[in-house]
Each structure stands twice: as C-alpha cells, then as structure tokens.
C-alpha cells in the first residue's frame, strides 16, 4: 500500500497491488530522481543560451523570405517583422568557455557541469499545446506526462510521500493536464505541493479538530472497518482502504516534516537566496526539491512563472522587464540547488533539467517584445553522470531553426527516461488497442551517449 493503490480511466479491471512499490529499471539507472525546472511562458533562447551576433548586425531589418518561409506564430508575421539584437551581453564561462548571457550570472558558473542543447524544436506555437507536447509527447491533452511515466516505470522509494511532486507559482497555462497521468492510473498523477505547513490538499485536520480528536476518529473508523472486513474476508480492496487512512495520518506528519525548512542552516538558505524578497519564493522551492530528493521522491516538476501574474510570457510586450525579473527570481536559487546537490553528493544520482515550452522569436514583436518561437530553443541538463561543459546542436545564424542535431520533445523525453534506467521503447501501457509510449513512435534522436561522453 503506497501513497495510493491501483488505478482514472482504464479498460481492464485490475488486482490490488502496490503500484508505487520500487520497481527495477530496465538497465543501469544514472538518475534516481529528476528535478525538472520548467520556465513557464517561453524563455528567449537568443537572449540566454544561444548567442546570435548576427541579430544585432541586421537590427531593424526584415529577413529575406526564404529564411522565414513556413514559419508562423501567434501574433507576428515573420515576413514583416524586423530583426532585433539581444539587449543582453554574452560572456564566456568556465573552462569550456560556453557563452551565456548576463541574465544568468549564477547559473553560468555551472556551465562546466551542464550539457547545453541548443537545437530543440517543435511545432506548437501556443502555450498549452507546446507544454503538453514537451511533457506528454502530444499537443493534445489527456496523455500521461514524463513524471507520471517515470513513477509508473520505477515506483517510489518513499511510500509516505507522493512519488511525483509538482510545485508552481500559480496556475499554469496547460492546466493540471501538464502534469497529469492521462490514461495511466490516477495514482501516477503529479501531486501539487502548495505553500505552507500542509503542502497537500486537505492534509490538515479540519479547523478546531485536535490531533487527539482526529486520532480517536481514525481509531473508530478502523474498529468499524475491521468488523466490516471480518465479515468479508479476503477482500484486499477493503484492507487497502483501511490502510490508506493510516497512511493519510502518517502523511500529516511526514509531509510537514519534509517541507519544514527551519532546520536548514543559514548558509544553506543563503545559497538559495532565501530571505531575499526577490529569490525567497523560488529559492524555497528549490531547497524543498533537494529535501524531496533526499527523501526518495522520484520526480519533481518545478514551474517558474504563472499565468496569473509574473510570467516569462510578458516578453510579448516587454522582453527586457519580463526576462530581467524572471531571471532574477530563479538564477540564484537554481545555482544554489546545483551547488547544494553537488556538495551533498546528490548530483551524481539526480538529473536536473532546465527547459521551457518554446523559445522566442529573434524577430521583434511590437516595440519591445518577442513572440513565441517553437522552431528553435535551448534546454540544459546537469547531474546523473552527465559530462558537462558541452553543447549539442546549433541553430542558424538568426536562431530561427536548428542546423545541427535537431532535437524533439520525444528525443528529450527518451533521453531522460534512459538516464533513469528505462528504455522508452519498452515502457508501455496498453490503452485503446495498443501499447502506448511516452515517445509514441519517435525518440530516435535520443542523445544519452552524447551526455555521458
């Protein structure tokens, strides 16, 4: 009996087993846990990880038609919009000398631990479909996401906490389907951690109910249920439900303990920027992510940016303000997370992924903005034995499209699964007449070998 037992919409009646019990991987697992840092709203690749000096040179000009043929996006017309150079300077960092913009001065110090992929591309230029594509392999919602597949394949090392935890600044444009279990059993759904002592919905006893009262009521339920079960021997469902009340009660202790940052040292907190109003919120989430990794949580999806306020997507109207603001909130916390994981020896067994649903147009939107650009964008990965300081793929001189090693969402997901010890072609779930896969029939440009050197 784990955080849950058995399956939302399936086709076959199932037996009661512990669906979150740890399961052996297909092969060597380099990453026991994954922290997926998702910059929600769309981060401009040409202003962060993919420098394009040509843009400054051709500033204020339109691009010749053959460059932009076939490209379309949500607001601008590629054939009429003008080129805009990056307002940020790029500087080389580390021994590898990888150029990173001044938006991420702290993360840049880790370039020698990171593998940067500059040639990601997709075809969905609206947020929700692009987010679904990246996390579930399909632009259409209702499919299981990477985190759900991971815990379906591997189970969890900690039965008292959710196996797949999601943290966000607020609502995402994808809605909960961005971290949904789709057709997989509901038990593999991401659990949203809220702020505060009780991170899981309805975890706290009702107002005014003391622990003593709660315990007595649980004991009463237990006593009555046992009488009920005695008359119905051998029914594992009934026993599992009885056990789920005890687990719920244990979680009332284990979850608040996991989210309690008060025992962390000041030095650690400072590392994450906790205490500084700009970085406190995201820093606390990053630190919590580390604590969850320590407790055996399999997959942590951490969103930066919300639909209802601060948002990378404010780059439509004001690239400089939005990116300065959002980068400032996340730069130090992410850097702190990498440092902290490394110093505790956790980085070797933890995969950290940084990504966004798409990049932004190298062409200007209005006076100060950039539009959505799914045709080329950058992500990076660190930890889990990845050989850092290297770049995979490249884009054309304007950052419009990949020219070397084009990488799709499927390839990224196949690679992440492989690092967790799973073969994306073998991790299947039978639904609607076929063995469904996260990568559908794709994922052939998996780049695990590149990452591991």
């Amino acid at each position, binding site marked *: 009996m784990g*955080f849950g*037992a*058995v*399956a*939302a*919409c*399936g*086709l*076959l*009646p199932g037996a*009661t087993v512990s669906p979150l019990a740890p399961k052996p991987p297909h092969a060597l697992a380099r990453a026991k846990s994954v922290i997926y840092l998702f910059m929600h709203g769309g981060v401009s690749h040409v202003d962060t990880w993919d420098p394009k000096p040509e843009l400054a040179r051709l500033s204020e000009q339109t691009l010749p038609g053959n460059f932009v043929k076939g490209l379309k996006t949500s607001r601008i017309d590629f054939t009429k919009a003008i080129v805009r150079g990056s307002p940020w300077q790029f500087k080389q960092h580390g021994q590898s000398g990888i150029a990173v913009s001044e938006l991420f001065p702290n993360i840049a110090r880790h370039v020698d631990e990171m593998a940067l992929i500059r040639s990601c591309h997709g075809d969905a*230029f*609206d*947020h*929700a479909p692009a987010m679904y594509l990246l996390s579930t392999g399909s632009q*259409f*919602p*209702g499919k299981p996401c990477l985190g759900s597949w991971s815990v379906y394949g591997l189970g969890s090392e900690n039965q008292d906490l959710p196996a797949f935890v999601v943290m966000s600044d*607020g*609502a*995402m*444009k994808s*809605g909960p*389907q961005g971290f949904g279990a*789709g*057709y997989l*059993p*509901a038990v593999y759904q991401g659990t*949203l951690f809220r702020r505060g002592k009780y991170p899981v*919905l*309805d975890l706290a*006893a*009702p107002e005014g*109910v*003391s622990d003593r*009262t709660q315990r*007595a*009521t*649980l004991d*009463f*339920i237990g006593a*009555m*249920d046992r009488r*009920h079960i005695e008359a*119905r021997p*051998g029914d594992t*469902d009934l026993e599992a*439900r*009885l056990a*789920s*009340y005890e687990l*719920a009660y244990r*979680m009332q202790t284990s979850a608040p303990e996991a989210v309690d940052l008060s025992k962390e040292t000041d030095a650690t907190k400072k590392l994450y920027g906790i205490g500084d109003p700009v970085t406190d919120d995201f820093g606390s989430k990053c630190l919590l992510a580390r604590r969850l990794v320590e407790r055996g949580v399999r997959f942590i999806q951490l969103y930066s940016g919300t*639909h209802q306020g601060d948002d990378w997507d404010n780059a439509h109207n004001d690239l400089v303000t939005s990116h300065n603001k959002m980068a400032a909130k996340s730069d130090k916390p992410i850097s702190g997370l990498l440092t902290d994981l490394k110093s505790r020896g956790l980085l070797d067994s933890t995969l950290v992924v940084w990504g966004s649903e798409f990049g932004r147009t190298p062409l200007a939107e209005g*006076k100060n903005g950039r539009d959505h650009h799914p045709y080329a964008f950058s992500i990076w990965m660190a930890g889990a034995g990845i050989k850092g300081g290297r770049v995979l793929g490249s884009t054309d001189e304007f950052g419009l499209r990949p020219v070397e090693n084009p990488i799709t969402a499927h390839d990224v997901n196949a690679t992440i699964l492989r690092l967790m010890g799973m073969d994306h072609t073998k991790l*299947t779930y*039978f639904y*609607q*007449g*076929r063995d469904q896969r996260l990568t559908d029939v794709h994922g052939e440009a998996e780049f695990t070998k590149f990452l591991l050197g």
Partner: protein
Amino acid sequence: MRFLLHAVLAFITLAIPAPAADDVEAGAVQILTANCSQCHSKSAAMAGLDLSTRETALKGGQRGPSIIPGDSASSRLIQAVMRQGTLAMPPLKALPAADIEVLRRWIDGGAKWPDGPQASDAKWWSFRKPVRPQVPRSGNAWVRNEIDEFVLRKLGESRLHPAPEANRATLILRMYFDLTGLPPTAAQVRAFVEDRSPDSETRLVEELLASPRYGEKWARHWLDLVRYADTAGFELDPYIADAWRYRDYVIQSFNEDKPYDRFIREQIAGDEFFPEDPVAQTGTGFYCVGPNRDLYPDQSDINREETLTDFVDTTVSVFQGLTAGCARCHDHKFDPIPQADYFRVQAIFAPAVKTKVALNRLSSLGYEVAANVREIKLREIGDRIRAVQERCRKEIADWKKGRPTDEAIRACLSPEESAQLREIETQLVSMFANYQPKPFACGITDMWNVSPKTYLPEKSGRAKQEVEPGFFAVLGGGEVPPAPDKRETTGPIPLYPTTGRRSALAKWIATPENPLTARVMVNRIWQYHFGRGIVATPSDFGSRGRPPSHPELLDWLATEFVARGWSVKQIHRLILNSATYQQNAKATPEAAERDPENLLLSHFSRRRLQSDELRDAVLQVTGSLNLSTGGRPVVPPMSKEELHTFTQRPENAWVVTADASEHVRRSIYLLQKRTFRLPMMEVFDTPESMLTCPRRESSTTAPQSLTLLNGPFAVEQGKKLADALVSESKDDAALVDAAWRRVLARDPQAEERRMAIDFLTKQTDNTGSRTGAAVELIRGLLNLNEFLYVD
C-alpha cells in the same frame, strides 16, 4: 516466487477442466498476438523470431526453434515466458499463470494455428453477426431466467456453484445504487425487508426504472463514453455554449427508454433523420461536447484534423467498440481496418459543421423582431460608451504603452463622464430586465449537400489519393449513396440540404445486421451492473481486446436486445431479476482460488461508489440533496486552495452559482470543466473527459482518505447532519441509532451501539461539546468502507 508460480500452475492444471482444442488454439494465438507480436511479427522479427505463423514460429530465430510441438517443457517459448534460464519474456511483465498454461497446453497439443478465426480476417468472432444460441435447460431451481442458464453452465464446467441470494437489505441497496446512483432510506430498506410478497424484487426494479433518478445515473455512464464536458479545454478552456442541453437530452433519453437504435440515429444524424424535431437534433451534441481548440485560429487546419479524428475515434469506439485510431496512421496492425477504411469514415464527417439547434424554432418566423431591435440598441450604446471614454483612452495611451485597462480608464474619468456612464449602465440593465435568450442546443449539420474532398495522407511513393465516404469493409462495407436531390425529396424538407452521409453511417450502425452494435451496448450495460463486461474491454472488441467470458450469453443478450425493440430498460429487467445478479458478494474459498477475478460470476462483485455516487450519497444522507433536474451547469463554491491549479483567473472563470440551494444538486448537474475537476471528484477517479472513457477505475489512495476526512465538503456536510441529530436525539443511544439509520440505512448492532456511545463520550471530552462529538461520529461514519462500498 518461482516456487509459488509452479504451485499455482500445478493447481490450475488440476482444477480447470480442459477446454476444447479450438478454444486453446484461438486463445494461444491471441496471447501471442497480444503479448509478443509487437517485437516478434513479420515486420519486426526481433532476434529473427516471427511468431505470427506456425511455420515461422517453428523455424524460430537466432536462438533456434521457439516451439517444439508436443513438448512444451523443451520449447524455448515456454522457458522464456516462465522466465527460466537467461530469457525472460515479455521483457516488462510476466504473463499471467493462466496464459502460460494455455500456451503449454497448446504446444503439447501440437501447436496448431486455428483455421482462420483471427481478427485479421472477417471470421473474427465479433465481426460475425451474433447467432441466437440455444438456451441451456438445466432444470435447476436456482435459475430464474435465461441469463442464469448460461451462467450456471459455465460455473458447472469449472465445478463451481452460485452463491446464495443476497440478504434483502443488501439487495435493495445494490439495486438503488445501480439504477439511481443514490442509497435508499432506512425506512425504504425496512419496508422492502418486511415485504414478503413473491414479486417484491420485480416491483422494486420497476419502481426504480420509473424514477427520474434512473436517467441521471445512467446518463453519467453515457457522458463518460462521449467525453462530455461543458468547456473545450486548452489554456483558455472556453465554455461550449449550451453543452448542457445535450446532457439533459441524454438523461431524458434514458428516462423515456428511447430505443437504442433511435438514440444512435439521433446522435449521429438527428439533423438528417428528423429535421422537424429539435430534440432529436440535440442528439448531435455528441459532436460538440468534446475537446477542441477552435480558439487558436492560426491553426485551423490542424484543428480541423483533430476534430475529425475525435469524431471518428469517438464514434467508432462508442458505438462499435473498436479502436480505429491506429488506422489513422497506417493499416491497423491487429484488426482488419485498412487506412483507407479509416478515411472513408472520416469522409462521412468532412461536410459536418457545428450549428445551433433552435429548440423552439418556428419555421414561419426565422427572424425575431425583438432580438433585432436589441441588437441595434446595443450597438448604439456601445458607440456612446466609446465616445465618453474616448478622451481618457487617448490620454492614457499617450504615456503608457499597450492597451489601457478598465481600471486605468475608470481612474481617469471626470465626475461628469462617470455620471454619463452610470446613466448608460442603467439603460443597459433595463434593456435586459425581461430578456430571455432563445433556447438553443449545440449540434452539427452539413454545410451543404456537397462536401470537401478527403484524401489519404500523402506518403513517399504514393500519389495523393481521394477516398469516397464509406464504411469498414470488414463490417459489410458499402458506399454512401450520393447526396439526395432536394427537389426529389418527398418527406419534410430540411432548412438546408445535407449530404446524407451521416444518416448512411447511422443506418449501417443502428441495424441488427451490424455484428457489433447490439453486442457492444449490452456488454456495456452488463459491465455497469457487474463491474466487468462479458467482454472485459468494453470498447475493444478487436483482437487485442479480451475474449468474451460467456460468448453465448453475450449473443443471446444482443439478439434479445434487438428483439425487445432495442430497449435498454428491458436489459436491466433481465439482469436485475436474474438469480445471477441477486447473489451475495461472498466468494467461497473454491471460487476465490479457481476464479479469483470472478469471471464466471459465482458471486456478486463488491464495488466502490463512483465519485458522483459518493458525493450524491453524502448529500442524500445529510438531508441536503436538491433533486431539481436539468438546466445550466451549477458552479459550487471552492476555496482558493482548491482552485490552485485553475488556469484562468477564478473571478472571471469560476463564477459561483448565486443561488446556494443549487450547490447541493446532483453531481451530474455540476459544471464539468476540462482543465479543472473538482478535487474530490478527481481523487475518486472522475475521468478527464479528453477521450472516451468506457470504464472508470476504482483506485484506493491516501488523497481520497484526506478529502473525505478533512476536505471542506465532507466536513460541512457532516456538521449539518450532526447538528440536526443532536437537536432531535434525547440521549447518546438515540443519537447513535439515528446516525446509523441516516448514514448506513440500518440500525446499529448492540456491539456497534456500545462502541459508538463510548466514542461519543470520549470525543465529548476531547472536543468539549456533545455537538463536537456528534460531528466526529458522522465524520467517522461517512468514511466507513460500509458507506463507500456496495455489496
């Protein structure tokens, strides 16, 4: 583990009588198809092994022969599936012991491939028209109707016996939940228990089938199938205007026992069959209540493709129990549906467009004077508002880029301008004071009697190829007749001409000649009563689905369904009045061992309440339930925490229904948003409504316990009942008795009463009040397995 497996196998060998050789052959090949063919087919042939024919299987792969006929022990296939030695197949999950045993028997019997009956040709069982089987005549007194004869025969073959009849209190509870989704009251239970007349059960079934609650319960099953929601999904998740009319149409259709063939015709082509009947056209809402992203106009080409895919997949899945989706990209690997057939069906929907169905259409008055006047006035008022705001808009735009917000404009207005706007506002309000929108439903119809062409997807080496509308060849095939000429029509003339394609499709489906339609529907009804269909994969009757546990019973029910005028209620009557249905839920040790999944129905299968039933039952027992029917979806209040994942600003998109008495209506009337399920419904397995859901899961998770124990809904409802009971009970014993009757519809046993009184005493100490203790008692009872499960 291995020891256990051997033990189990040995046991099975002893316990199960050998099935006929034909069954073993078909079963074995099906096991290979389902589990091995992905890697070991003609096209894949990993390790050189192709298990799709006898010849290639005997030849084997790189490791040598996989099968040695007559010698299962030496056959590499068996060693691999037993996970002995170096090979362990299938790689991810071991086969069930029973499947391995079928394979062993099959090899020992010579490993013969059956003559033909594989899905890849038309002889597959479900593609042949059901033939009415001979009903066995056992002469056994247990038997009440034909269902029991078929069930008894299968039980006998496994030397199992039916369980005794359920006690009457259990039976009434089961029948209430199964037919109405609500529990009976304690008084209703007592009356039924005391009713000794021989036809009491039959009368109860009739009473429940006649209840308006019946339609509300069974429409829920149907809405799951048709992936119903009130919004369209994606980041803006906009309302689908009037989707709820389709929901009410489904409820009404079940309540009036609309013949299923007519129900199909209305949903697929109500506009073509019944142009004068707006209710029938509301059925075409089937095609409006699914997900769509029409709000992304730049992707209209992709959107149209997705919409057509949704139409085809949902239609074929719901009415035919087939998974056609595979054939969209390539010829179906396991079932005989070529890609061309998929697009022939897609072509049927090519001319279909969404439309508004005028529910009180007067054909003489297509033009409404009042609406026209209102429209003109609204435009005038819009101009006046803009004129007043003009100064501010300009002023703000001068120094602040972007569009000025409403707040900014309001702050800028002079007192005179504000007064002018207030005056306009008053006029606006008075204009709508007696306004009643004309009732519309959403539906589809054809844009005209011509259609855009449909092509097979282009492939390298294949020229663009047009396909004509038609139906799956394996199910009889056929072309759609050309669009009727309006001038030659003798029947009622529709407002606009259509192609007739969808009515042709509906005719193919809604006929006794179609081998799947009746079988699929009776199997669904069966599943919703027994928890598992005769075919356990209710929307997959193809080769990758499960074979029927009682094939003759399925065919008998299918033919009976047609013979009884496609009446769904008649099938309920047959099932609920059967001895099979009225068994108790206790498995004998023999049954638990020989048939752990209860495929043979040697007893009733206990089930957990579904999310809707659970919420409705809580409301019912606390006396809160508002049983009013139909209408716009109700939006109940939610806490900020509960709305945490909400994609839009809740103040704009979660507009709580003003009348609080609406908040406690049955769950089917609550707003169903695609991007947001009510947390309590979500944890109890309410489907996402992105794709058709033929069977809900019944999970057991800690979040369920948390929501029912600590969540605001359960807590508030518990308090409500506790308050009422405290004021009406003179002492703790009376309180306990009343609580038991209300929540569990029975009296407490003496021991339970004693335990509960002790509990009240203890909790009075802990909480400091008798009311506090009573709240805890109710909270406890609402969390009991007895409350959550139906025996």
